[in-house]
């Protein structure tokens, strides 16, 4: 699986910590066959931690051609980990490529900082090939229509996304490690679909 993770900025936020943990999990659990690149729309102090764990790290603030990254590198799945990056990249990915698009920003929304309007959030979930929600934060409602395109993970209660903005525990707790593996499995499933 060749995966491009997209994040808005490399600031040390809970979401950045979750991405670091996810990439670390890949090294332990899913073998050498997977490659994980990261695209960020602006830099920050978490750059070093991500650069050490990702195969490649692209920072769009350097004048990078985002379309070239998305189209020319033939990813099996593109994973938007926060709402801001999903919002920015979704029209490009969904409109001009056939690459599966996974949206985790909704699951992390409570801790990811600014979110978007409800209509935009619903639209992202409706159009993504797979949407990941936090198991505890979302009321059950109309998204039943998404069926298997919707997955609920215990992102917050597992301690995977600490609320203090610091990177998650390393190594993660057994429960968090389990959620991380499940998260990766979701990405792999979307890539294979």
């Amino acid at each position, binding site marked *: 699986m060749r995966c491009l993770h997209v994040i808005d900025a490399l600031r040390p936020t809970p979401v950045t910590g979750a991405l670091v943990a996810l990439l670390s999990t890949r090294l332990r659990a899913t073998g050498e066959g997977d490659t994980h690149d990261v695209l960020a729309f602006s830099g920050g102090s978490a750059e070093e931690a991500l650069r050490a764990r990702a195969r490649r790290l692209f920072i769009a603030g350097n004048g990078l051609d985002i379309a070239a990254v998305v189209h020319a590198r033939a990813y099996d799945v593109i994973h938007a980990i926060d709402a801001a990056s999903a*919002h920015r990249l979704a029209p*490009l990915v969904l409109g001009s490529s056939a690459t599966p698009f996974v949206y985790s920003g909704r699951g992390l929304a409570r801790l990811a900082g600014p979110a978007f309007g409800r209509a*935009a959030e619903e*639209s992202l979930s409706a*159009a993504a090939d797979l949407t990941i929600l936090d198991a505890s*934060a979302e009321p059950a409602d109309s998204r039943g229509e998404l069926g298997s395109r919707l997955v609920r993970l215990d992102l917050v209660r597992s301690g995977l996304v600490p609320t203090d903005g610091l990177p998650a525990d390393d190594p993660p707790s057994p429960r968090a490690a389990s959620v991380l593996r499940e998260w990766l499995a979701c990405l792999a499933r979307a890539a294979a679909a």
Partner: protein
Amino acid sequence: MPGPSRGRVSARAIMATFPFDLYRAVGEDRYVSPGELPPESGDVGRALWEVYDRHFGRFTGAGLDPAFARFARVDVSFGLPIFPPGTPVVIAGGGPGLDAVAPDLRASRARVLVITSPTGAVALQRHGLAPDLVIVEREPGGREDQPATEALVLGPRTALLIEPSAPVASFERGAAMRRLARDLPSWGVWPATAVAVAIRGGATRLVSVGLQGAVDGDDPARTDALLAAMAIHAGAECLELGASGIPGSRAGWWPASWPNVVPGDAPAVAALDWRDIGGAELLRAEAERDLQYLAPLLPHARAALTLARRARAGEAIAARDLTRAVEMLLVWGADPSIRWALQRSLGLTFLPRLWRTGVSMAAPQRLWRPLVLTLNELVEQADRFESRLTTLGHTHGTASSPAAPPAARPADRRRPSAIDVDRISVVVPVLDDHPHLEAAIASLADQTYADVEIIVVHDPARADRCEPLRALPRSNVRFVPHAGSIADALNAGLEAATGAYVVCHGADDLSHPQRLARQIAYLHAHPDVGVLASAASVLDDQGRVIAAVRREEAAADDAPAWTPDALETRLRAGPCFEHGSAIARRDVLRQAGGYRLRAGSPPDHDLWLRLLPTTKFAKLPTRLYSRRQR
């Protein structure tokens, strides 16, 4: 040569030089490609486009209003600040550079005007300084009701210039003056907005202080590039004070030290002036025109969305049909007037981006993805837009002044003279502290169903608890003071209701945005059903779902609707749905005599039992209501 040593520049010359309309139009995402720029835009157009292309990805999102916050307050008028020529205008951010300059700024405070953001105002406050003008913009992509900086206390000198789409909380600060900024020249980067506002208001000397690191969550290169382009083409004197006395290096901004900021002949006292430009009726009239203009497009959008959803569900849809739907969207994008009306009035974010990235037709079976992404947002926003306008229209025609205290509105208590067959009256009894009351009201005001009135029946002793509601952008809220039991309060709400359908909603509980629309659709299709409930969930104090209300609702999303026969059996055995989840025909409730207190049975269940012989009950399987655990 520009810079501190250059002779005085006239405000008229600067205003004639800087193309405000072009600057604003590019920042508002009116242009998709550089070929659309007006031919006369020349070097300035090229410079602005380069920044727009390279640093903003050809989409700023500034000025869009996905939450329709511009409809929130109708009691604030529009205004433009006027800056006296020759007076230095300091654009102050909360970056490290402010610390070194603060003492000098304090010493010369009376002779300069200071513009900042809410965050910058907090930084200035720490140095004992108050700004003259705080610009409040909606952060593109920002949370719908993101509050302004909590620590901010504005003094009598400070005025707020508020973008109409900025969060409602921004209006509530104790500033000396609040003005909405119509057509704010904004790219969503407040220092650049401050520069544009100052130049448009006649400022001839601009001084930047503490801007490095002062734009939250932004790429600093983006701010620098935009400020540089403006300084080079604006013609005003643009000075930059660096951190620790070291001049900065932003192109077009001349490094300066404080003694050069305030020339000897600058006015001794600097003061802002204002030009009023009307009230919020302008926005509403504009919105109504937009709605009329867009109305013919909306059925096509709904049909295309339905098609795309069927394709998403795996149904075999002809590639030709999906391709045509995409082509329709692209044709809309090729027409600047349609494009502008859609993105501005509906606050769309995905369709404008799609017009810029284009759509590949190489994989027709995947075309449902861009269609669902863009049309889902479009249709939902159109419904909410229409709902807000309808609600405003209803309120303007019938409601009393929002400034009047609840107890001072006897008209609220009068018996309704006519019943509106489409309206839903939601009665919310407020007999306790109810910490989540605002959230409950917000969930009702955000219903996709258009014609909803919210009747807050409160104990007069709890009038203070209702005060914050008057500051909310919920102009369809009415207040009915009433002392007595819960049954009396509910009956008072029934009496005041003007809708043909009634809901009695918990004051801490939440309704799904589509709850009323779904329930009314069911009742229209089932005229024999008098009371319709829905499955419900229980929330903890943080808003997290704890459980379904009843065990049988745990799998409610997959369960068939509860039939009237099944419900009758269950009702006779005891309560089997949440009171707040029920919607009832008003006449049915009134004919039964309303609520009453009886030992051994809650008022709602007592009422349902009395209704069983005269009407049918049904219950939707989807959890559309969330009760807060107490």
